[in-house]
């Protein structure tokens, strides 16, 4: 059997039966207009899209299978590679799921830092999405303008975790290391610089006449359809539904901070962009409430059999050496049970489902990826629209290939 025989023959069949004047165009998987490895086969009538078929799976690494072999801390490196635009959010989602299953209480200091990093990552993700949307519509300057500030956030994350992209932030029971002394002041500097930049970005791009005309009413989805397709996050809120995991089922300290959930009306590209823009202001608001009050104390829970001891003590003390050996060799002991825990990632509800049999590795890991659920509605979103609009629709959905295929 030849490779992709079925797919190829299906498209060949489609090609052979093409109505007079129609055109079959292949976008991707490696195409400058699809950010990430995504393929769309589009049937065109002139400039209008008649039918689309989304082909996915080019970045599939089967993390769910790997998760059955890795221990709970090792699986963190897999979560790094899911939504690679806002990595710490995935790390935190996974760690919170494991900690909930083990019923670990972490110190407030850890929760504060996790929340600050969560919101910074959300801003990072939204900056990329907004910037790329502008680029796809021909406005390059917006992205370059905001990238400077994204870089500042990256600097903080790099200082904190040692990596820019694959952060592997947090461990079960706390953080890998304590925050550095000037963390709070640097976060404040970033948010201080971000606010005027966001205002400028809004005036330059989101209030731009060309941008508005290109995006208003394009790629819209009704609230009922969005719910039926399992939308979540900014894309659902743009359709007018105020679901946000941070408010609905609060985790960490999201019930203690003040923030609003922006909602749109028609779920179009413009409304998605506006919702994301407002969400960045709300994230800054959350950060400002937290950053001055980071409590002092440990950066991990006092659980020597779960959290790795300090390296210096491993060399000098017997007990720490034993704990170090046990954790490295046998992993974290997790009780038998099941856990579904949802967090609000930048794209929507990121849920981790763990089935544990009480062993070193979970019996089954499942990731509820927001992208996977809303990308299936893409053919419906672009049907009847212009080909150029489908590009804008795609980038405003913020489909991340690494998360989509997992």
């Amino acid at each position, binding site marked *: *059997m*030849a*490779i*992709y*025989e*079925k*797919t190829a023959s299906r498209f060949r069949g489609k090609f052979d039966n093409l109505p007079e004047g129609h055109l079959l165009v292949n976008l991707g998987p490696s195409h400058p207009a699809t950010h990430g490895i995504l393929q769309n086969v589009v049937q065109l009538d002139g400039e209008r899209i008649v039918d689309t078929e989304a082909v*996915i*799976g080019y970045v*599939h690494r*089967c993390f*769910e*299978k*790997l998760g059955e*072999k890795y221990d709970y801390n090792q699986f963190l490196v897999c979560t790094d590679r899911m939504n690679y635009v806002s990595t710490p959010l995935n790390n935190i989602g996974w760690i919170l799921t494991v900690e*909930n299953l083990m019923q670990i209480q972490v110190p407030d200091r850890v929760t504060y830092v996790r929340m600050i990093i969560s919101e910074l990552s959300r801003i990072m993700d939204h900056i990329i999405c907004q910037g790329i949307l502008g680029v796809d519509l021909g406005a390059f300057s917006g992205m370059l303008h905001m990238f400077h500030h994204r870089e500042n956030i990256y600097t903080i994350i790099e200082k904190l975790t040692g990596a820019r992209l694959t952060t592997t932030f947090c461990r079960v029971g706390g953080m890998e290391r304590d925050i550095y002394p000037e963390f709070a002041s640097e976060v404040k500097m970033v948010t201080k610089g971000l606010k005027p930049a966001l205002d400028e970005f809004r005036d330059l791009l989101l209030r731009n006449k060309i941008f508005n005309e290109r995006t208003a009413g394009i790629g819209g989805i009704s609230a009922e*359809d969005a*719910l*039926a*397709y*399992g939308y979540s996050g900014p894309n659902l809120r743009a359709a007018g539904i105020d*679901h946000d995991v941070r408010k*609905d*089922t609060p985790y960490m300290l999201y019930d203690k901070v003040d923030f609003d959930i922006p909602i749109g009306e028609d779920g179009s590209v413009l409304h998605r962009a506006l919702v994301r823009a407002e969400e960045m202001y709300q994230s800054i608001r959350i950060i400002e409430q937290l950053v001055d009050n980071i409590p002092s104390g440990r950066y991990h829970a006092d659980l020597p059999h779960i959290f790795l001891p300090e390296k210096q003590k491993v060399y000098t003390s017997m007990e720490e050496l034993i704990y170090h050996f046990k954790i490295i060799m046998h992993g974290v002991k997790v*009780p*038998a*049970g*099941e*856990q*579904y*825990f*949802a967090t609000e990632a930048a794209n929507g*509800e990121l*849920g981790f*489902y763990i*089935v544990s*049999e009480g062993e070193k590795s979970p*019996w*089954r890991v*499942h990731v*509820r990826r927001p992208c*996977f*659920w809303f*990308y*299936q*509605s893409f053919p419906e979103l672009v049907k009847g629209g212009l080909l150029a609009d489908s590009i804008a629709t795609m980038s405003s959905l913020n489909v991340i290939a690494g998360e989509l*295929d997992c």
Partner: protein
Amino acid sequence: MKEKVESFLQSKLSQFVLRSEPINTNILTFSIKSEGVVPVIKALKEDSELKFDFLNDLTAIDWLGKKNPRFEVCYLLKSPSNKHFRIMLKAAIEDGEGIHSITSLFKGANWPEREIFDLFGIEFINHPYMDRIILPDNFQGHPLRKDFPLEGFGQDYLISDLLHIHQEE
């Protein structure tokens, strides 16, 4: 909310709901018969009080050597109007058995069901387009099955397929 769901299932759909051993979980879980998937989810979705009208997650578990029947298909439903309360429904099926698709109730079940078919080999009846979604069409086996080796079956057959195509062209 927990009592409400329990009494609703016991009073109206008791022929489909099985009693199951308690597990350590944070989500209210019910075991249902595989033929009852569509009526139970439909009833939960359309009930004016419970309103489980959001399909939150859809996945499967392979219990090879641990449980009989082998597979469990897990439906996670959410009720946004009841403080986003979640319940999990689990339908156990044997290898080679099919299960009814719920795409008629939730459009969003389309891709997740195809993903389960792709990675577990569980077929969904009445699905609009039951085919592999993530892996290539000539891939052999279903990787999330417990008897599928982590390294896979090697790539020789994939490479020979590629060579075959080059020779043809």
